């Protein structure tokens, strides 16, 4: 098979009842355009979500419909070409963050983002994935992290934390209840997280560990759209967790890591886990409700919360971060469209790793800017390290002077001293 055949074969593999139903239902109303950051901020019709799926639609029609098959038999249909897939590559990767807003907007109920995710399987198999994302995936497979961080980097953070807090950071502790996984951005840039979770878990009395062979949660395979590669990356975490016999794996503050670990993971490896997956924010809220997480002092700063797409629309974690914020932030305000309808930072779904997409990503930050301008806050809290980087980047390009902090760190800053 050449790459084109391989790509088309992958799409034929991926087309299932939902996809066939979605294409059957589409009435070309164009409403999904309004839900897409890339359309609303550019007004370019080619960014209409359903249009990004045109090659997949044609393959469905030609391979899975009565008339389509008939037309193909008669040689009356136009097969999908390599050039076409190449032309669609920027639409499928650069202008889609897999944010899933279109799936909520579609009046006939099409889960458009589900189809984009599936279409990427074919795109990457046909060789049409962005170079930046390819590089990130190669690093993730080869080096263990898309950003090139490794165990040594983590070990340095662990040392610092132990020195700073006087607490020990458990590594490869068999039989712990929880196994913490980090995102590569956290390891590379927001290493305070190691200290934050160490202190919080110490206070709450959580039995936890990290794994030297499964600490990286970021899954570039999901973003580039290859289940094969995603499975390889994910299986490292699964192996470590099952080796250490933990009950739970904690997903880091990283949207796609959560999706990969929580929802796609068992399907990627083809079996259920022997553990459960919980997002760090879910766990913190759970500790709060059990009275095990106690804070003191308030941060009077006017702050807001940026909902990561994979947490809310694709993850169902909406209330938990707010419960936590209310513990420490009396001046917390919601952005317009907060919660399930929040607008993407612009860098999800692999866009942040795709240098070619950067100008477009910066341009569409105007939506986030408008949301922020509407409420006038000083600090943005979020629970996704990729969102955090994208927000910082966007703010800088727009000369906006706002702080961006991770929610876990914010809680850790206000942690009450251990009472006993």
């Amino acid at each position, binding site marked *: 098979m050449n790459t084109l055949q391989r790509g088309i074969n992958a799409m034929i593999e991926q087309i299932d009842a939902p996809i066939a139903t979605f294409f059957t239902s589409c009435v070309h109303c164009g409403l999904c355009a309004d839900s897409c950051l890339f359309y609303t901020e550019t*007004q370019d019709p*080619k960014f209409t979500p359903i249009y990004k799926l045109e090659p997949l639609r044609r393959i469905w029609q030609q391979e899975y419909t009565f008339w389509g098959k008939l037309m193909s038999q008669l040689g009356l249909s136009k097969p999908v070409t390599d050039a076409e897939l190449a032309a669609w590559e920027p639409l499928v990767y650069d202008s889609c963050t897999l944010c899933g807003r279109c799936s909520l907007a579609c009046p006939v109920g099409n889960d458009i983002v589900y189809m984009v995710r599936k279409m990427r399987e074919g795109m990457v198999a046909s060789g049409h994935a962005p170079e930046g994302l390819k590089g990130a995936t190669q690093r993730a497979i080869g080096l263990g992290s898309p950003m090139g961080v490794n165990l040594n980097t983590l070990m340095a953070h662990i040392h610092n934390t132990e020195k700073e807090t006087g607490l020990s950071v458990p590594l490869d502790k068999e039989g712990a209840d929880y196994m913490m996984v980090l995102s590569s951005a956290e390891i590379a840039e927001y290493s305070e997280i190691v200290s934050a979770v160490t202190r919080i878990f110490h206070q709450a009395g959580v039995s936890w560990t990290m794994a030297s062979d499964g600490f990286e949660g970021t899954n570039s395979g999901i973003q580039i759209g290859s289940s094969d590669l995603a499975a390889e990356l994910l299986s490292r975490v699964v192996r470590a967790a099952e080796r250490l016999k933990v009950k739970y794996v904690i997903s880091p503050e990283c949207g796609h890591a959560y999706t990969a670990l929580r929802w796609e993971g068992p399907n990627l490896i083809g079996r*259920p886990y022997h553990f459960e997956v919980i997002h760090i924010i879910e766990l913190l809220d759970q500790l709060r409700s059990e009275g095990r997480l106690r804070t003191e002092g308030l941060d009077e700063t006017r702050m807001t919360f940026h909902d990561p797409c994979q947490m809310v629309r694709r993850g169902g974690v909406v209330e938990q971060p707010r419960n936590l914020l209310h513990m420490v932030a009396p001046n917390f305000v919601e952005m317009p469209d907060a919660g399930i309808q929040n607008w993407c930072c612009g860098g999800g779904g692999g866009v942040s790793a795709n240098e070619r997409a950067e100008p477009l990503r910066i341009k569409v930050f105007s939506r986030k800017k408008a949301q922020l301008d509407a409420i006038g806050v000083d600090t943005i809290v979020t629970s996704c390290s990729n969102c955090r980087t994208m927000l910082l980047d966007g703010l800088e390009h727009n000369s906006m002077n706002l702080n961006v902090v991770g929610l876990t760190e914010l809680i850790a800053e206000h942690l009450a001293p251990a009472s006993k």
Partner: protein
Amino acid sequence: MNPQDLLYWVRGTGLQIAAAIFVLGMSYRMLHLVLLGRKKSLAIPRGSEWAYGLRIMWQRSFVLPELSARGKFTVVAGYIFHLGFLITLFFLSQHIDMLRAILKFGWPALPRSVIDIAAILSIAAMIALLVHRIIDPVKRLLSDFQDYLTWALTFLPLLTGFMLLRSIGFGYTTLLTLHILSVELLLIAIPFTKLAHMFSTFVSRWYNGASAGFRGVKA
């Protein structure tokens, strides 16, 4: 064939042909869609697929996110068209007569004045939507021949029906024949075109809602 024979044909054989193609086509198409199957997720669910899927099937008819002016236009005109079409289809006494003859049960009709308004609004909305499809860059990009064909096939029954009610243009026999014929063309076209969304929409919504429900997403 004289006009009476033609009318008799469209009321009889024509309708049988159209109904057969429509039912066969839709039964095939809907079942074929579902039978393609989907993988059952191995992840631990946070909520119910069925409950939320069923909820979205219904709810997506009413809850729509914030939209731009062009989006609002599509939604408002779309609502008017669909509602007007359904009201005239199911609540004009003549249509109930027809359905009663097939289903063996009926229901009360709406007053003619209401039907008139619904039909006029529906026709106006369809024309507006056609113009919008031509001038709006997004819709124009998405549109192909089928979008215009299905528009025409949907518009004709509305138009001929309205002309029939108001005795505009041709005589009653001719208009009734044209009206029934246009409905038959529409019925025949449904299984082969995007008009199949009349049923598949609800399946789409279920899949979408089920996926969200599985993850415990509450819109």
